[in-house]
């Protein structure tokens, strides 16, 4: 058993059954072992390493297990970087394995040599520059528990070619003794902290909860809803927190940020206490410093202690995962009279589906009509993935993510081109589920090479390309800040997506009416096959959304 064989057997021991990647010179031996174990461990080869990295990310978000992604040295490794950064920003557990040149060549600028460990220091939870068999054993023994413990995130194992090929006889013990280690979870809430937090919540007359990816990842939906109802607090969500609360819940005011509904903006403006549950209060979500300066109090609940007080000092906090923290708060609030909500929204998030009355050019659809048609055709229990751009914010705001649905988006890094790879991963993680990708014409063009992967893997992905002939989010900024000088944000409208898809061996359709769209989605779902559906969509700017 050489290093490569050890890696593959350790992956299997960690209950990994699917990996993503792309072969190359320094990982020859690893792919040789993957070939040997192809019945136990499925490998999906993408068109480009970035696609594989996003697929591992999507797989992890869907399965709750670490995504695994393999690439060769040099360009193979550098192509992963965007994917690693994306996983890091959104706290997604993933193990990236790269080959590197023989250890005797390292530092000599040899062919396809890069210092990938150095390049990814700031975007990994941990990494190993493996140049000896001992270190390979240590890395493989710890990688999975590190990426899953506490606040999740990616790790990188960079292995020299000779370590992959050698070390025979040195790994037997490590393989034998390995047991899936217990995940080291976040600390239990300190009772003093819980008391302080509870007191602030009790004393607040207008509390508001911001629900983030940490709450969603911890499965804290039921506790969050209970707290909201007990304290009479409306709930706003970050992109990462979407789906934690049901869309028809009256206290759920939907997303924050540029595309927030006016109810959400108003509640945020009027509240006197903000309870951030697993939300890191990023600058796209809210100006927390401004809100604090205007006299609002802040409670932070975060699994990562470093998030507490990061942007502004919190008035009270609990350093623990959201589910545990909220349970502790609820236990202390037990018995106190339930407060009536101080803010009521006339419409729930799932009511926001009606397209506004406006005359559209023939063949053009309002986004609400697109979502309505897709939702009706696809039903419940679906996975919704987005790319990045205005279509992403529209999906986040208008598509009702029900309790049985899942929502996957690139929140922190805002990676255009994330969607196709991520939906490949998400669909692979749960093959029986309908997976729908909403993308824009800009994002679609960035990584459409992965259509080849969709075709070769026969993945029944439904890809809705919301075409508006522009990089609309940037265009909106140019409208606001650059005197309507639309520099480089107009996209070529001549691209024929159905023809492009047929070249990839996929069915591409242009839907001109909501009925055509609904039919196209229904057909794809019924026939359990992929479909790329192009819709001309009017995406209004945030101020008119």
């Amino acid at each position, binding site marked *: 058993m050489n290093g490569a064989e050890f890696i593959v057997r350790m992956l299997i021991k960690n209950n990994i059954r699917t990996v993503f990647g792309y072969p190359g010179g320094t990982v020859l031996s690893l792919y040789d072992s993957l070939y040997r174990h192809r019945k136990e461990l499925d490998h999906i080869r993408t068109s480009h390493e970035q696609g594989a990295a996003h697929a591992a990310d999507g797989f992890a978000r869907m399965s709750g297990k670490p995504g695994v992604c393999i690439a060769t040295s040099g360009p193979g490794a550098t192509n992963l970087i965007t994917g690693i950064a994306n996983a890091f920003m959104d706290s997604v557990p993933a193990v990236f394995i790269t080959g590197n040149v023989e250890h005797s060549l390292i530092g000599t600028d040899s062919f396809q040599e890069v210092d990938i*460990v150095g390049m990814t220091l700031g975007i990994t939870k941990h990494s190993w520059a493996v140049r000896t068999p001992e270190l390979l054993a240590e890395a493989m023994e710890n990688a999975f528990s590190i990426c899953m413990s506490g606040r999740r995130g990616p790790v990188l194992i960079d292995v020299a070619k000779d370590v992959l090929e050698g070390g025979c006889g040195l790994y037997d013990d490590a393989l034998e003794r390995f047991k899936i280690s217990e995940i080291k979870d976040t600390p239990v809430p300190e009772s003093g902290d819980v008391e302080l937090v509870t007191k602030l919540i009790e004393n607040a007359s207008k509390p508001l909860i911001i629900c983030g990816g940490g709450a969603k990842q911890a499965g804290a939906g039921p506790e969050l809803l209970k707290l909201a109802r007990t304290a009479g607090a409306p709930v706003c969500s970050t992109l990462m927190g979407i789906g934690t609360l049901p869309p028809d819940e009256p206290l759920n005011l939907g997303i924050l940020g540029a595309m927030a509904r006016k109810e959400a903006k108003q509640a945020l403006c009027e509240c006197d206490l903000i309870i951030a549950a697993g939300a890191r209060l990023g600058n796209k979500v809210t100006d927390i410093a401004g809100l604090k300066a205007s006299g609002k109090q802040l409670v932070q609940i975060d699994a990562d202690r470093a998030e507490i007080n990061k942007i502004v000092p919190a008035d009270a906090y609990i350093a623990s995962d959201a589910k545990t923290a909220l349970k502790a708060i609820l236990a202390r609030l037990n018995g106190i009279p339930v407060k009536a909500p101080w803010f009521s929204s006339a419409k729930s998030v799932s009511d926001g589906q009606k397209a506004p009355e406006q005359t559209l050019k023939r063949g053009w659809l309002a986004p609400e009509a697109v979502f309505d048609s897709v939702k009706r055709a696809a039903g419940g229990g679906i996975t919704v993935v987005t790319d990045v751009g205005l279509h992403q914010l529209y999906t986040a705001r208008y598509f009702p993510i029900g309790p049985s649905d899942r929502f996957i988006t690139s929140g922190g890094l805002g990676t255009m081109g994330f969607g196709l790879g991520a939906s490949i991963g998400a669909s692979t993680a749960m093959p029986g589920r309908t997976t729908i990708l909403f993308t824009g014409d800009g994002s679609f063009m960035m990584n459409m090479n992965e259509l080849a992967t969709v075709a070769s893997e026969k993945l029944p992905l439904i890809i809705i390309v919301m075409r508006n002939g522009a990089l609309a989010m940037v265009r909106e900024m140019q409208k606001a800040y650059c005197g309507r000088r639309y520099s480089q944000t107009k996209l070529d409208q001549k691209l024929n997506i159905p023809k492009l898809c047929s070249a990839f061996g996929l069915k591409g359709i242009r839907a001109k009416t909501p009925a055509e769209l609904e039919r196209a989605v229904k057909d794809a779902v019924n026939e359990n096959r992929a479909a790329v559906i192009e819709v001309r969509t009017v995406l209004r700017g945030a101020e008119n959304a």
Partner: protein
Amino acid sequence: MLKTISILVDNEAGVLARVTNLFSRRGYNIDSLAVGTTDVPSASRITVRVDCDARVLEQIIFQVGKLVCVHKVKVLDADAQVSRELTLIKVRADAAARSEIIDIAQVFRARIIDLTPDALTIELTGDGGKTDALLDMLRPYGVIEMARTGIVALDRGSESISDSPYVFD
């Protein structure tokens, strides 16, 4: 305010890069940095002096504490620490200037550790401020080059960083 932070880390390749990368990525300004092994062969100690406010200091503690290679982080008590820095200064010194420079060195309890017909090298141990004062005195003679280790520091008393409340294992 200047704060001295002690960080116990794995004595392994790449660990210093991880710590300094974090400082530069998050925009924390390093005033002084010193690294060395400890009585435990598997551990190194990084002493870093940072100019920051209380909130940034808290951030540094918890961000650094998240690194897998970091075992302990401790902010040393400004009023109850011993800190030292070793400096070597090579000064131009012909026969005429030599005795004057040696007199200056003696006032600072510095030692002459190398001597040539036209230069001498002074070794000084101090807490930083003393080094700057000596340097000011030597400048008129012509400082050829100098090297400083960066500050190393320990808390006064019998406690060890191992007793620190900041545990990140």
